[in-house]
Structure formats: structure tokens, C-alpha cells
């Protein structure tokens, strides 16, 4: 069985890819698979990133470590799936302002292809997390601690651990880079799925994405 690798064209020539894709029937299988893989990679990265938090809480919530890990992994997985719908929905709604035409499923399909860079971004983040997490120094909050201020201070201290901060900054930069790559794909995806001019498609995708990135940069600076 020959694997259809033509969708990889979206990475280097999204305009050409979507020009071909729009002529075909709506097919959510490959986009869903891409998003699913992205979600799995994101969940794997979350497994490593949540480790210091589990250690932090190990004294206070003895025996709850696996539950916290499971919750974090599940949340990362589900959030990726939800973000697919969210991005598609937002772009769909914004494109309405530019009199965009086309079904939501088609938009969903095109946006799904745009998650392909997120897989690479997730894998790089995973490697970065595996590098930095062992360097994070974390001490468990003593069991029986009731003072919320102590817990808050402990959490703040963890977030300000040098290795943790480096990890956060690096992952944020990686996600911004690959989000811009995805945005580049989504612009062409929206252009063809919603039958918009390139400029309108760029605004439909660019405005929400730029706003999100600005928020990410703000959080980065507020650390």
C-alpha cells in the first residue's frame, strides 16, 4: 500500500497544494491524522513538562502523581484537538467579514493541513523539554502544608527556576516560529476554502494569530 505523501507539499508550496486540494472532495482523514499526531506529540511533551510539578506536589498530594501526569497528558491532547476547531472557527468567522464563502468542513480540512508544522514544533519542544527538565531543581512542598501562600510561593519559585525559565522561553519561541509557519499555510488554506483574495485571507488568519503571538510575547516578558 502506497502512502500518499503529496500533502507534505503544503509545507513548501501551500498555495499550489491548496489549489489542487480545493478541486478534490472534502476529506478530513489526513487533516485529522495530522492533528492527531500533533496532539500525541504535544501530550508527550506535556508528560515531561509536568514532571517538576508532580515532584512539587508529591509531598502535599502523596500518591496523586500519576493522576496529575494523566490529567496533564490528556489536557494537552484534547487542547490540540480543540485548537483545531478553534482556529478553524475563528478564521471562518473573521473571513465572514470579508464575505468569505465555503463550508466550515472545507475550512476545517485546510486548517488541519496547517497543523503539520506543529508536529515538527512539538517534536523539537519534546527534545528541548527532555534536555531542560532534568536540570530543574524542585523541592516538594512539605506534606500537611495548608498555607496557600506557601504553595503559591513554591509554584512561583518553580516557574523561576533557571532551567524552567529557559525551557519556557525556548518552547514559546519554538511555538511562535511554527505557529507563523502554520499561519502561512492557513492563509492559503483560508484563501481557497473561503474563496477570498490573498489580502483578505492574510488578514483573516494574520490578525488572530498576531494577537495570540502578542499575548504569548506579553506572557514571556511577564515571567
Amino acid at each position: 500500500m502506497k502512502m500518499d505523501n503529496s500533502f507534505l507539499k503544503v509545507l513548501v508550496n501551500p498555495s499550489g497544494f491548496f489549489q489542487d486540494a480545493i478541486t478534490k472532495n472534502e476529506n478530513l482523514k489526513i487533516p485529522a491524522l495530522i492533528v492527531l499526531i500533533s496532539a500525541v506529540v504535544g501530550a508527550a511533551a506535556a508528560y515531561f513538562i509536568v514532571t517538576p510539578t508532580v515532584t512539587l506536589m508529591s509531598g502535599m498530594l502523596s500518591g496523586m502523581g500519576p493522576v496529575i501526569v494523566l490529567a496533564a497528558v490528556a489536557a494537552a491532547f484534547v487542547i490540540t484537538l480543540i485548537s483545531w476547531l478553534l482556529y478553524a472557527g475563528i478564521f471562518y468567522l473573521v473571513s465572514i467579514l470579508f464575505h468569505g464563502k465555503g463550508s466550515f468542513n472545507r475550512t476545517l480540512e485546510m486548517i488541519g493541513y496547517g497543523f503539520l508544522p506543529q508536529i515538527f514544533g512539538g517534536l523539537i519542544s519534546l527534545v528541548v523539554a527532555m534536555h531542560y527538565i532534568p536540570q530543574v531543581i524542585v523541592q516538594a512542598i512539605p506534606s500537611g502544608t495548608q498555607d496557600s501562600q506557601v504553595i503559591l510561593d513554591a509554584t512561583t519559585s518553580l516557574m523561576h527556576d533557571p532551567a524552567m525559565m529557559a525551557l519556557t522561553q525556548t518552547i514559546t519561541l519554538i511555538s511562535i516560529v511554527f505557529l507563523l509557519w502554520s499561519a502561512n499555510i492557513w492563509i492559503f488554506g483560508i484563501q481557497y476554502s473561503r474563496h477570498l483574495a490573498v489580502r483578505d485571507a492574510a488578514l483573516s488568519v494574520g490578525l488572530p494569530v498576531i494577537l495570540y503571538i502578542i499575548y504569548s510575547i506579553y506572557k514571556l516578558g511577564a515571567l
Partner: protein
Amino acid sequence: MKNAQVLFLTAILLLSGMLPAVSAFTTPDSIVAAGNVYVANTTYDPGTFFTGDSGTVTVLVTNGNANQSTVVNHATIGDKDIRLMSHPYDTSANIGPLQTRPFTFSIETDAPEGTYYPTFSLSFRDADSLYYRAPVKVDNTPLELSTIEKPDTFAQGQKKTLDVRIANPRESDVRNVVLEVSGDGITAAPARTFVGDLAAGASVPVNFTITPDQPTTAHLTVDYNNGDNLHSVAMDLPVSFGIDKTQANPVMSNVQVTSTAGIYHVTGDVNNAGLQTAYTVMVTSLSPAVPQDPYKTYVVGALKSDDFGSFEVTFSASNAAVVPIQLSFKDADGNIYTAVQDVKISATGQNAATTTNGSSTMLPVIVAVVLVVVFVAGWALYLRRKK
């Protein structure tokens, strides 16, 4: 008339002949026998007198005759300085062969210091009297109360130990020696110390503590009995407040602060820069710090002069750049002393993290902004060309 004279002489002769039947005569034998009666010992109680003291003197008289008793009519002792207070031996008494009989008299003296020789006299029925001089001393030397060790200064509410010594420079023992400590605003423990008997030339140390509430004077009084006569000697000790130059002085050094998981760890050394031992040295953190396990309080233990020990305390602190670290210790009397030293925690704490990370945070922000600008500019350029 002649008959009357004859009758009188006859009566005299008859009476003279009857005398040996009712009492002995002073004969050479009785005089020899009296010569064998002697004073074996004389004991004064007390051994030496103060002027004005009363006491007793016991004279032991021994009959050295092996087979002849001695009858004494009267015994007494005293002179103008050593006055006899009782006359218990104004009646005759018998001292058997080779027996010793005590004669005890109550006496008193108002004489000044010196050695006196009151005369003991014993009159025999069948011979002359026995005289004996029993020397006794009148000595007004009191007991000596001296301070062996006392603190240079006192502090309000802090207990200090004093060592004194009670010595008996007299030639005789004294009894019921009691040291009493009193004074305004002073709590002494024990307030009264019973020493008991104190032999001639002996001394005894006495320890007690004073806890003053104010600068004052401590009155030390030693009461004692010389025989049955109560005497006392007093001494005043000034209780002034100030800083003891020799007291222990623990000092913190080599203080290092680390922060892990919101818990600050302060480690360091405590050196005793004082001359006395600091007992139960403890280190803990004060507000705004909240002590946390595992080292809410660190007990260093006892530190001798120039000795040192390490400590570690753990605490949490929010929005605090400086945290007071308290160092407490006790002296030998259990008084607690505290010293507080501020320790900067911002250099390693979250505030410092914010400061330290302020510069490093800027780089990724700049990079992110550049990425966004490049992306937007690239698309703007692309759109312009597209037109």
C-alpha cells in the same frame, strides 16, 4: 563552886570524847587523801566566749584514792570577769574511790577580749579546799563572709549565680550557721541556706542566685550560734545593671541563602566571640518569614568560647527582601539572650529571580517580536508584488 567547875570540865571532856563518833577529824590521813583528789578536765561551752555571752563550764574532779571516799561540802567557780550564774553545788557530796564527778556551772561574761582564769574551788569536809584556775578566752572575732565569685553586672529579670564562702576564724566551733539573702526588688534562691555546724578554722562555700528587678543592694546575713548565743555577720553587695564583659556572644557568619520550591534555606556558622559558654544556641526565622519544615528551628547546642557550629533554617517569605534571623542562647543560669540579624533573601529569592531574569527575558521577547515583524513584512511584500 568547885563542883560546878568540875562538872563543866567533865562535860567538855565528855563532849570531846564523843566527837569522833559523829564527824571525822582533820587528820594527816584525810589531808593525804584530799591531796589525791584533782581536777581531771575543764570544758567550756562555748569554747570561746563573745563579750556578753553566757555558757557553761564543766569541771571533772577525780578521786585518785583507791579505797577511800572523799566528801566535799561546796564547789564553786568564777571571778569578777567570769561570773557564776548558778550555785548548784552548795551542799555536800561524795566522790567514791577512783571516781570522777562533773561539776557544771552556768557562767556569763561581760569582759572585753582576753584570756581569763576563773578559780574553781572545792572544799573538803576532812581537809582544806582544792583550788584550780580554769582558763577561758573571750574573743569577739566574728565569722568571715567573703565573695568568691559574682557577676560584674546584672540585668533586669535575669538570674545570676553568686558564690560566697563562710569561714570560722574562731578557736571554737559555731553551730546553726544560716546564710540569708535579702534586698529590695531581689528574688534570691535560696533566700536562706542552712550550713549547720562550722568547725574552728573551717570554711564552707555557699551558692545562691539573685534575680533583680531594679538596681539595688543585696544584704547577706550569716546567723550563727556560739553556744546558745545568737550572733550574726552581714555584708552588702551592690546589684548594678550593665553589660557583662565576659558573657557569651554568639555571632552569625558565613550566611548563605538558597531558595528551592518557595522554601528559603539559610545556612551559616555561629561563632561564640564571648568568654563564657553559650548554652542551647538556637537559630530561627522571624516575621515576615514563616518557619517551615524541615528546619523551623535549628538547635546548635552549647558553644564554648571561640567555638563554632553550623546551622540551617528553612522558611517561606513573600514580598520580603530581608528576613530577620533570631539567634538565642542561654547562660549557665538559664537566662535567655536573643540577637537578631537581618539576612537579605532577595539575592536568591523570587524577587531576585525577577531581576535576574529581567535581562534574559528580553532576548526571547526581542526574538519573538523580530519573527512576527519578519512574518508580517514578508506577507506585506508578497501582497504588494501580487498586486
